[in-house]
Every structure is written in C-alpha cells, then in structure tokens.
C-alpha cells in the first residue's frame, strides 16, 4: 500500500505508461520494455495511477508497435536470443488499449465514497499496471454474507465477489453456448443466493441437475444444492419414476390438473404445438363457454359431430377447432396431468418458499419435452406470481410482512421469451416489472438472440460465457455502454470456466475464471461437510465445551 492507502504497483507482472487515447476509444498504454505482450490478456483488470485519481479499467485490445519504420525492411537478427530479448519491448514494443471504467479518488476521505464511473481519462504518462487484489476488493467487495465469491479475475488469485442483495434486485441472465459452464455458473449463483439468504429460489430444473446431483463433462458426478444445503432445499419432482431411478425420494411430486390450464398457457405453447392463430384464440371462446376450470376437459371429451357444432356456435373455423382438439390431446399423455386434480402444487411450492426453503422442480424425463417444460414452468410461475402480487399488495396496504424475494430460474429461456411469445408469458412481465412484486428471474440460455430485445434490455446483471454467433453476442451486449469494447473481451473468453460479468450488480464489467465447483475443497468452501467430518467437528466442539469424554 502507498502512503495514501491506495494499493501500489509492486505486485504487478508488468507495467506501462499512458501515451494517448480518449474516453470513448480507450486509453493507449505503452508497455515497459521488460513487459511482454504475451503476459497480458484482453479482459485483464488494470489500474492507472493518475495525478489525483486512480483509474480502474479493462484491457480491450493488445497490439504490436515499432519505434522504427525501417524495422520491417531490416529486421533484427532475432534468431540470436540475446538480440531478440533486447529488441522486444524497445524497438518493437507492445501497446494495450484500456477502457477506463471507474475512478477512486486519492484524496483522503473521498476514497470512502467508493468507486465512481470514469468520466475522464488519466493524464499523459500515468503509470499503468495490473490491478491489485486490494483494488478488486475495494471495488467488488470482500467475501462476506452479502458478497459471494463467484470467481477470480483473470490471472489473479484475489476472490471476486458479487453483491448478492444487489444481484437479486433485478432479473438476471446467464448466457453461453452449450458446454461453456452455464450450469456450473448458475449452480454457483443459486448457492450464493442460498447462502446469503437474500431471496428464495425456485428452479425449473429442466435436466435435473441442480437438485440432488449434476454431471460434469466426462461424466463425473457433482453435488447438487440438496446435498450441499440439506434442509434448506426441497426437491420437487414432476416425474417420480425418473427420480426413483436416480435414487432420490422427492419432497413432493407435482401434478397439474386439467382445471389449472388456462388459454394463456396455450398461447405460449402455440409454437410448440404448431397451432395457428385462430386455433389458439379459440381457447378464449371455449373458456367463455365452459368456464375457467372445465373448458379443456370439455374440449377433449367432445365427439367429432359435437365439435363441429361447437365450432359453428363459437364462430371458429371447423378445421382450426379440430386441430386444437387434436393437438391439446397431446397433453393427455403427460403423466403429471391429473384429471382428478386434488393437488394444489402451487400452494405447496408457496408453502415451502414461505418457510424460506428453496425449491428445485426436477422435470425428469419431461425435461426432454419442451412442451411439458414450457407448460409447467409458465403455469406454475403465473400462479405463484399472482399470489406474490397479492401478498405484496396486502403488505403495502396492511403494513404486513412482505413476501421473501423470489428468484425463479428458467432454462432454455428463449422458448418463453422469444419475441412474439414473450408478451404472452408471465416471464416477460416479471422481467419488465423488475422487483415490483419481489419476484425476479434468473434466465439461463444459449441463444440470447432469440430472446425478445425488450426483455434482454431489462435484465440487470448478465453473466456471459463464450458465445460464437455474432447475433448472440450483439444480443447480450444490447443496451450496454462500451459494447464494442466488450465484444473483443467476450470473443476472447475461454470455452471453459470463464465468464464476462456486467450490469447492475457489478461496478464495472469484469472477466472471471469461475470458482471451482465439484471438488471436495469447493464443497468445503461452500460450507458443506461430509457426514464423517461433521461428526468429528461436533465431537471436537463438545470436547472443547465440556472437556474430553471419560472412558
């Protein structure tokens, strides 16, 4: 640390000097002769020591420059290692482009205000180096109850923490093509929310990998939330058979009654069911005729003649009505559809959530069926959201306790949130209304370009793993300042265990190496103890309190 309490540059592997640039294009930094461009990666956090302020920024580009225009014509004899060492960094040197993001005032007292967005650039010849662990802690916070260690900045050992309370204030997104570690990152975020107690989770677990156990690439089993947090997590299942096959006894088996399905749910499934607009809209007429609870059962039980009669009566094309009946009959083969409908799954879920427990709904075999996933997730969420809205309004009028904030995790989110469908689903409403009713989303998706742009722009914090498709990259960066500079950072992400974080909950965009998950150490750091270890610790505590046991 320097005299003014600011971290110094001693720990940096390289140093440089500001030689030009602008706020919009980024600051040009010439690397010191002994620094090699190969040590510096795009996305690295950088500290710049200005005259009165310390700037924090991010490397957005690395380039080669030469002091001598004749260098290309008469290159030095670099086959000689000595000459190569001399020339690199002097005649031929590296420059980096740094996007300044934050400033920390060096004047005592103002530093306590914390980092502010950078609205100017450091002066010429300001010293530049890799940001220190102290800088990272100053900006992102130290690990504590509110700050969850999510990973490490590139090439640094320092823990980079996410302010979980701030995180759950908005709907958030985790993006990345498949195999880039979305699920691991999501599992970490869920664990962070769980640990901090900032909100309760409801996870629509399409591939049954969050509840009890998931699988890493290569088939290695990793513990799910239930194994790590035990009684704080309840695993619900839609497919009891599948759960049993995996040796799990779910806390509750979810059933959906025919009465619970509403025309809105069918609108969302329009694409999945291949329904035309008139066919989908006919559901509203059916509901008006038969009532909210009975319309679906009535429709499915109609004989062909009666169906054509009904179509005439409701002024619907006969073919459309027949298609509607035929397609909706597909729902009948889902094992979780329950004609008796004595279950009230929503009440059960809310009961668990109300007690501060986190619910993972495993889809088991139905996870492979988009129709089932979209139907159930939308239906349950809509009804849970309605109850939350009621509770919140009651809380406002009667000054009663507010419902615990709820984070709903949905996978394959573009199926709910693609433009055209988004307006019909409850998820778009939740994304738009922020936390008005204490419900936010954690959207997990590999195809962000398919998600409605309005929904994308409402997401607070985005955690982005590698994306290849240009359209996907553009989609996640929509509405982000300095998008073009982040693009180069995003493109340089490794395909494993790396992510770019930006948005509401992080003071500046940052590239991280995601925290390990799946090793015994990683479980321990999340507070998990093996039963044997737990027992030993209790024994030790008892011995510490009462002295060693006799005998």
């Amino acid at each position, binding site marked *: 640390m320097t005299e003014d309490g600011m971290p110094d540059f001693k720990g940096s592997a390289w140093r440089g000097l500001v030689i030009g640039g602008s706020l919009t294009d980024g600051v040009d930094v010439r690397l010191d002769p002994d620094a090699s461009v190969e040590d510096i990666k795009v996305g690295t956090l950088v500290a710049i020591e200005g005259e009165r302020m310390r700037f924090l920024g991010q490397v957005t580009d690395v380039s080669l420059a030469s002091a001598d225009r004749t260098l290309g014509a008469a290159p*030095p004899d670099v086959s000689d290692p000595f*000459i190569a060492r*001399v020339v690199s960094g002097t005649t031929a040197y590296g420059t980096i482009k740094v996007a300044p993001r934050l400033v920390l005032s060096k004047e005592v007292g103002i530093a306590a205000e914390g980092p502010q967005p950078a609205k100017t650039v450091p002066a010429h010849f300001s010293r530049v180096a890799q940001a220190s662990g102290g800088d990272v802690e100053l900006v992102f916070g130290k690990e504590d109850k509110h700050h969850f260690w999510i990973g490490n900045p590139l090439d640094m050992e320092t823990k980079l923490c996410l302010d979980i309370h701030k995180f759950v204030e908005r709907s958030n997104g985790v993006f990345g093509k498949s195999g880039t570690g979305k699920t691991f990152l999501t599992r970490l975020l869920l664990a962070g929310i769980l640990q901090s107690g900032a909100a309760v989770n409801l996870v629509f677990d399409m591939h049954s990998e969050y509840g009890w156990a998931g699988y890493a690439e290569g088939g290695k089993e990793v513990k799910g939330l239930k194994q790590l947090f035990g009684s704080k997590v309840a695993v619900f299942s839609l497919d009891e058979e599948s759960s049993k096959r995996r040796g799990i006894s779910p806390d509750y088996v979810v059933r959906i009654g025919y009465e619970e399905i509403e025309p809105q749910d069918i609108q969302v499934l329009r694409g999945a069911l291949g329904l035309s607009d008139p066919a989908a809209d006919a559901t509203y007429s059916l509901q008006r005729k038969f009532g909210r609870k009975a319309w679906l059962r009535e429709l499915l039980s109609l004989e062909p003649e009666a169906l054509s009669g009904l179509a005439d009566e409701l002024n619907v094309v006969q073919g459309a009505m027949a298609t509607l009946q035929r397609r909706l009959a597909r729902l009948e083969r889902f094992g979780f559809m329950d004609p008796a409908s004595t279950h009230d799954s929503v009440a059960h879920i809310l009961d668990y959530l109300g007690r501060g427990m986190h619910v993972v709904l495993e889809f088991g075999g139905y996870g492979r069926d988009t129709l089932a996933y979209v139907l159930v997730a939308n239906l349950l969420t809509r009804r849970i959201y309605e109850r939350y809205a009621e509770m919140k309004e009651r809380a406002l009028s009667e000054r009663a306790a507010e419902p615990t904030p709820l984070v709903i995790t949905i996978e394959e989110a573009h199926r709910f949130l693609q433009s055209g469908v988004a307006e019909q689903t409850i998820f778009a409403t939740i994304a738009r209304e922020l936390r008005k009713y204490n419900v936010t989303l954690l959207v997990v998706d590999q195809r962000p370009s398919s998600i409605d742009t309005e929904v994308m722009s409402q997401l607070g914090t985005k955690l982005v793993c590698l994306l290849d498709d240009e359209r996907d990259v553009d989609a996640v960066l929509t509405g982000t300042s300095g998008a073009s500079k982040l693009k180069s950072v995003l493109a340089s992400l490794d395909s494993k265990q790396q992510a770019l974080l930006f948005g509401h909950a992080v003071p500046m965009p940052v590239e991280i190496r995601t925290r390990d998950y799946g090793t015994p150490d990683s479980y321990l750091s999340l507070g998990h103890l093996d039963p044997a270890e737990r027992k030993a610790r209790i024994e030790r505590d008892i011995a510490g309190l009462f002295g060693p046991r006799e005998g």
Partner: protein
Amino acid sequence: MAVKGKTAKAHRVGEVVSASTAAFQVHCHKLYEAPPLGSLIRCGTDGSLVYGVVANILTESLDPSRKPIARGADEDSEEAVYRSNPQLTRLLATRFDAVAVGFQDSGGLHRYLAPLPPRVHSFAYRCDEGEAREFTESLEPIAVLLGAPIASQDEVVAAFLRLASRAHPDPQAFLVRAGKELAVQLIGQSQRLNAILRRLSR
C-alpha cells in the same frame, strides 16, 4: 564511490598529457600496457575525479621526425627484435584517448561531462570491478559515448559494455538491459543498432 586506497601504483596506467572536457589523452608509463579498448579509467584526485572510457590506443615513435624502421629481418621472433634493440622501449610510446563519461565531486557521482577537464600530468588509474559496476548501475554513459567526438563510436560502446558486463553479477542480464537502452537511443538507426547488438551477443 570510495577510491581511497585504490590509487595504488598497481592500478596506475599513465599520465594525462592533453585534455579537453570531452576527451583526454594518456601517455602510458609502460610500452604496450594500455588498458584494453572500452575500459573504464579515472584520473585526478579525490574531490575532482574524471572518468573516461578508453576509445583509441596508439603506439608510435616519441619523436615524430624519426619513424620506426623494420629491424627483425635476421631475428627469430618479435621478442628477439626488442632484446637486440633495448633502446626501442625508450623511443616508442603507447598513448590512448579516453572519452570523458563522468566525474565525481563532493556532490557524488555524475555520469555526464565534468565541468573542467583533468589536469595534465594527473595520474590515470584502471577502475576495478567494484567501481566499474557502480559506475554502470545507470546506463547514461551509453548516450555520452554514442555522441562522443571519436571514430568508431559503436566499437567503443560495444567494448565498454562487454567489459562492464563482467563486473556485474549477471552479465547477460546487464547486457540485455544495456541493449534495451541502446535500442531506445538508436531509434531509427536499426542497422547501427543491429551491428552493436551483434558485437554484444558474441
């Protein structure tokens, strides 16, 4: 820099016979016993020491009007020529030119030209490794040498750095550091830089 005790006769190489602020000439006390090209020497006494780098060594007749003539036609070896003509060591003289690269006064060590040249007849001493190391901690002398009014500057710079590197614990690291300084000084003169670097790498 502590030079007391190092003004011993053993280190003495000769006397200054002409001097300017930029360069001076030393007449060696013994024929052919000039310090090698590029060596660091100093002259003067405590309080006003001037440092120089050997830039040019010449041996010639003391009397310009009497040119040396070939004498070894019947001798078996070079040594035999000198043995048979003992007067030669008195008639020939070895001199060297030194480029002034720094000085020391009460304010410490400076690596730029001294305000006054050394006096004629001041003794010149060869610097030992410790002095050479301390003097080359900073690489400012490179700039002085590159701008010195001498022929074959580049050869002198290369010889100076090669010798100085031996005084440093990690000669290679010193040479790399010096090479980088050269690269900065010789921006736009890549041919010249390459030539010096080739001399340093061998």
